[in-house]
């Protein structure tokens, strides 16, 4: 069975601090995708990143970075020098490459205080 666990329900930090959101997944598929989405208070879901299971390179995009480790089935997301606009709920998700259905984590609510 496939499963995504985001153990951190809510994280609160002060602006400019670095913060890491954890994501652990379970799957029996040998090929799969991992995703992160951001949901600000307005409600829309914003796609942040997709990672193929065969590509374990870490990725950096501005203040955002992602650490994919197959050995620990983790796909963690770090925001460096956090800003108030980063406040949102962040979802990690998993899909097989055969049917594209997303298995969602419960989400982590990130609060950045000024």
């Amino acid at each position: 069975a496939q499963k995504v666990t985001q153990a951190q329900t809510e994280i609160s930090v002060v602006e400019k601090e670095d913060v890491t959101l954890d994501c652990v997944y379970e799957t029996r598929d040998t090929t799969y995708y991992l995703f992160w989405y951001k949901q600000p208070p307005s409600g829309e879901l914003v796609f942040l990143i997709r990672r193929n299971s065969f590509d374990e390179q870490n990725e950096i995009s501005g203040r955002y970075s992602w650490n994919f480790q197959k050995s620990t089935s983790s796909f963690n997301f770090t925001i460096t020098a956090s800003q108030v606009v980063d406040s949102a709920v962040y979802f990690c998700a998993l899909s097989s490459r055969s049917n594209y259905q997303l298995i969602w984590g419960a989400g982590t609510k990130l609060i950045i205080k000024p």
Partner: protein
Amino acid sequence: SAVISQKPSRDICQRGTSLTIQCQVDSQVTMMFWYRQQPGQSLTLIATANQGSEATYESGFVIDKFPISRPNLTFSTLTVSNMSPEDSSIYLCSVISANTDTQYFGPGTRLTVL
């Protein structure tokens, strides 16, 4: 990525009535999905909207309650029928963008049932 719009963006409805939500995409897409997000929860897939045939519903969702139409490759509707307060949620449509294997989401419809 595809540009997705949804109408209405929000609505307040009376118990027992029905609401139809529209999802329009700016390009032809093969795969289109409808999700429900109850307050404070993660996303739950309602169904896959199939062009020219009946939608494929997930466990716990039935056509009588959530009829879906998909007359072409750029448009779909979801109807929430005989509403009760438990149907108060955000309803989102999503599409798989060609050649990216990534789901992109519409802005969502925030439904409140009194």
